[in-house]
């Protein structure tokens, strides 16, 4: 009979606790219930809760279930959702990508990159100017402009016998043209790296 009452007291206590703990996150609730159950089992195994009176004392010492849950709520700390979240650098990464590899898409790729560059608050005006001016149109620009820098000439013989040559484009010595082409190709990537590291640095502030 005593055993029945004792079991009843314990199971009532645990039921109340479980109900009160509904406000806790599921894993915390399970953990708390397990620990309190373990405590009660240990008390009973130690003979500290053999009859109704000692069980009542043991449960009194444990405290009101609501009080335990209140302590668990306090000890949880702020919910992760309420922590201030640091805005990511997604916009900045997109901007830099479009300004470099995105310039493969004629005009639009680089232009959208430039708009993103100027709309970011992570960069100073100097950074933005650097990103825009090195190199307008992006690294793909020399690829599009390359053909213009080659001279093509057509020769014809005039009726008087003189050879006339007509040329389009402008001539650029390969000794200057090739390094210039490579520089125009590489410079935007170097600037991109600088911009990214500045964006990261300013996101940590």
């Amino acid at each position: 009979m005593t055993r029945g009452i004792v079991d009843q007291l314990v199971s009532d206590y645990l039921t109340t606790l479980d109900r009160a703990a509904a406000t806790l996150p599921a894993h915390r609730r399970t953990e708390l219930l397990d620990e309190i159950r373990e405590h009660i089992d240990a008390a009973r195994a130690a003979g500290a809760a053999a009859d109704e009176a000692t069980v009542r004392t043991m449960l009194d010492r444990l405290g009101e279930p609501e009080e335990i849950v209140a302590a668990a709520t306090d000890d949880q700390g702020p919910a992760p959702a309420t922590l201030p979240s640091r805005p990511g650098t997604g916009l900045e990464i997109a901007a830099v990508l479009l300004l470099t590899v995105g310039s493969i898409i004629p005009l639009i790729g680089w232009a959208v990159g430039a708009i993103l560059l100027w709309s970011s608050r992570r960069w100073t005006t100097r950074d933005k100017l650097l990103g825009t001016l090195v190199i307008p149109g992006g690294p793909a620009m020399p690829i599009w402009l390359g053909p213009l820098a080659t001279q093509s000439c057509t020769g014809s013989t005039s009726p008087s016998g003189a050879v006339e040559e007509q040329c389009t484009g402008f001539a650029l010595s390969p000794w200057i043209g090739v390094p210039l082409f490579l520089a125009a190709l590489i410079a935007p990537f170097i600037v991109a790296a600088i911009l990214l590291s500045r964006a990261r640095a300013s996101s940590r502030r």
Partner: protein
Amino acid sequence: MEPGGARNPLSQLRRGVLEYCVLSLLADEELYGFDLVRRLGDVDGMVTSEGTIYPLLSRLRREGWVSTNWVESEVGPPRRYYAITVSGRRALTVFIDEWRRFRDAVDQLLPGGTP
């Protein structure tokens, strides 16, 4: 439970100090959860409800100041034992110094104190 409940500044203070009392008890030996809670509960004026120590232990574990391990028991299911970690020891050492200064400061200011 004193008036004002968990929001009572004195109960907040007690709870803040309690975690270092837990660390202090664990400084010498690993303890079974039940024994740890009972030892704290047996000190008059320390804990108003023993059950509230378990959430505290779970927080200390998340903070990495305490670790738990399951030990097989001869009677009944395996038992959760609590042990202090290296960073828990460090936190305890810092607290002990700060607490002594704080305690002396309060004693000095309260009536009957020795300025």
